[in-house]
């Protein structure tokens, strides 16, 4: 089932792989890689490429990572480059930023982004603002990464989405990959970027496999930060999403296609800087917009997108008001039935599309 879903998602990619099979003599080295391994390989390659890169965080070394994202790295690179920290986020995030000040390129893992709140001052005031305050003198080439947003049964304190909070702040780049291609290309780009990057993963995507082409497996494969990707072409309505919800949008699109509604699905990939041009071009083409995110509605990613559409040229192309599909505006409950109804489901997306299209 997973491979069928990933085939559906691959869409254009699967087609291009098939074409290459026909035209090339040797078979392309396309492989199935899950998001966890994509992240792992990206870090491994970047650690190898640049000796200033190192990883620190709780359980990243000898435990192989709380979610096994850093599996094998400590064994390969040792104590100097893969550092287990005590449970002191504010301290080790600050240490990571200081190391970046002094010329290293740290990857600072938060076991989940919920714990980043302990350290948020270091992310914002020490990392994000420093290049500006120093008028370009002091760079901060750091990546903060970890799983973000809802998981399964971890309840309110472990389920918050931080895309809107960090996306709010100038000086940061905020990235939210969906699939393995995103995870690999964006993490490599983030590590190579000389700016502080907030890298929002999703725990529920870690185990999901996707096909990666030979080109994507190249060690210099990077995806530009700040550029959204149209995952599925469509004509009737634009669905804009990030992270795990992109998959839900594609699933919803598949269902809607049977009813003759062709959705264009835009994968933001980057929260900040937001690729407004791609969103606008899509809305100007389809005339309708639904944003889909796991986070809370108030002051969220979708709210920003709608505001930008209002303020820009795409507004005149809207046939109906743009709407948002979001997590329910409550702390995340524990019981499965409640949790399931706290996050956007495929049926919520389908319902909203039909409302917008007046079907």
């Amino acid at each position, binding site marked *: 089932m997973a491979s069928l879903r990933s085939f559906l998602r691959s869409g254009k990619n699967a087609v291009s792989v098939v074409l290459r099979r026909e035209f090339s003599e040797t078979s392309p080295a396309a492989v199935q890689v899950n998001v966890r391994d994509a992240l792992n390989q990206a870090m491994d390659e970047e650690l190898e490429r640049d000796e200033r890169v*190192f990883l620190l965080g709780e359980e990243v070394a000898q435990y192989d990572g709380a979610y096994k994202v850093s599996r094998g790295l400590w064994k390969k690179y040792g104590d*100097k480059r893969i*550092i287990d*920290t*005590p449970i*002191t986020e*504010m*301290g*080790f*995030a*600050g*240490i*990571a*930023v*200081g*190391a*970046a*000040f*002094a*010329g*290293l390129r740290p990857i600072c893992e938060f076991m989940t982004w919920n714990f980043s709140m302990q350290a948020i*001052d*270091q992310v914002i*005031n*020490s990392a994000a603002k420093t*290049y*500006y*305050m*120093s*008028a*370009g*003198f*002091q*760079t901060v*080439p750091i990546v903060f990464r970890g799983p973000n947003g809802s998981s399964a049964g971890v309840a309110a304190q472990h389920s918050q989405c931080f895309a809107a909070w960090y996306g709010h702040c*100038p*000086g940061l*780049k905020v990235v939210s990959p969906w699939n393995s291609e995103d995870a690999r290309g964006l993490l490599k780009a983030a590590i190579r970027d*000389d*700016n502080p990057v907030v890298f929002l993963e999703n725990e529920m995507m870690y185990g999901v496999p996707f096909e990666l082409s030979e080109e994507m497996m190249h060690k210099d494969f990077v995806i530009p930060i700040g550029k959204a990707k149209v995952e599925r072409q469509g004509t009737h309505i634009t669905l804009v999403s990030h992270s795990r919800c992109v998959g839900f949008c594609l699933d919803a699109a598949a269902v809607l296609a049977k009813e003759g509604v062709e959705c264009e699905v835009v994968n933001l990939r980057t929260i900040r*800087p937001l690729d407004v041009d791609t969103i606008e071009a899509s809305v100007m083409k389809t005339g309708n917009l639904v944003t889909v995110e796991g986070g809370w509605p108030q002051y969220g990613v979708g709210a920003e997108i709608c505001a930008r559409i209002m*303020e*820009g040229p795409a507004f005149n192309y809207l046939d109906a008001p743009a709407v948002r599909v979001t997590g329910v505006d409550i702390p995340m409950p524990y019981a499965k039935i409640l949790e399931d109804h706290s996050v956007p489901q495929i049926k919520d997306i389908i319902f909203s599309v039909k409302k917008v299209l007046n079907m």
Partner: protein
Amino acid sequence: VQNPPSPLLSLWPGGTRMVVSARSFADFTPQASFPIKKCDLHRLEEGPSDEALLTREQGLQYYRTMQTVRRMELKADQLYKQKIIRGFCHLYDGQEACAMGIEAGINPTDHLITAYRAHGYTFTRGVAVREILAELTGRRGGVAKGKGGSMHMYAKNFYGGNGIVGAQVPLGAGVALACQYQGNNQVCVTLYGDGAANQGQIFESFNMAALWKLPCIFICENNKFGMGTSVERSSASTDYYKRGDYIPGLKVDGMDVLCVREAIRFAADYCRAGKGPIVMELETYRYHGHSMSDPGVSYRTREEIQEVRTKNDPISMLKERMLSNNMSSVEELKEIDLEIRKVIEDAAQYAISDPEPSLDELCNHIYARDPPMEVRGTNPWVKLKSVS
């Protein structure tokens, strides 16, 4: 313990003194040894030497530097009262021996980070007075082009200037980590105040620095008040040099530049030997209030401030030592004072007359090494340009 006067002096009949301009280098005592206050030690068998050797050159350099910082801060006070400097302005006068002593005991290739009372360190770490004052007045010639202000000045191996109390301490430990990682034998001096000393993140930094043996010298500049709260009212333990617990510490007379220098040399040697971090408490005093908006007399008496000025001023102490050991003369030091006054006046003139940053600068320096991008202005029709 004083060296005998220069043998050359005894050649002059009657010991007549000459006018300073004709006074030759050879007339002064080239160096002298001074007893310095012994440091209180925590988890250390021995501490810094209780004697400091001062050469004439060093004495003049320390005097010049401390006097420059003093005059610069007083000029900033003046400019602030004239409303030419605005916002936050935390002055360092009284604490000069700390910044000078530290700089004298480390190398330019070592690293330093401090909190917001940073003008003195900005100077000792190599930034010209005019660039500091112009930053305070918010002009394009400021060290941060007017975009940082009092609390955000940076230089090579100097990481500010930090506005959030205590946040600089993990940052400093991180710089030390980089030194260790790169194997360059450098150390990072990480400063914080008595007010910050209770911050949790400082103890987190102590833990990791000790665990990983980072070459970090944690220094608490104890000027007895965190804003208006005395140390007795803020801290269950005011032995700040012991607060590192498992980390060795020393308590240093922060008003004596030689004491500070010997202590930092000791501490730097300790760190460079790979023994891990060390904590230092510098007992010092600020003449001004916490900032320019604090008169500084609601929580302490004018008598107390005056007493420190007369009995414990760091510049006076150095001057007294040099004069009574014939390492300089009243005239020579006066000449230095005049030179400094001119430097400060010129710098102030520059800081007042230099233009403010261009509005084109507004959105620059958001991202490093990126292509130019657009930044939203205050309304959707205003699209501003940002370059790295």
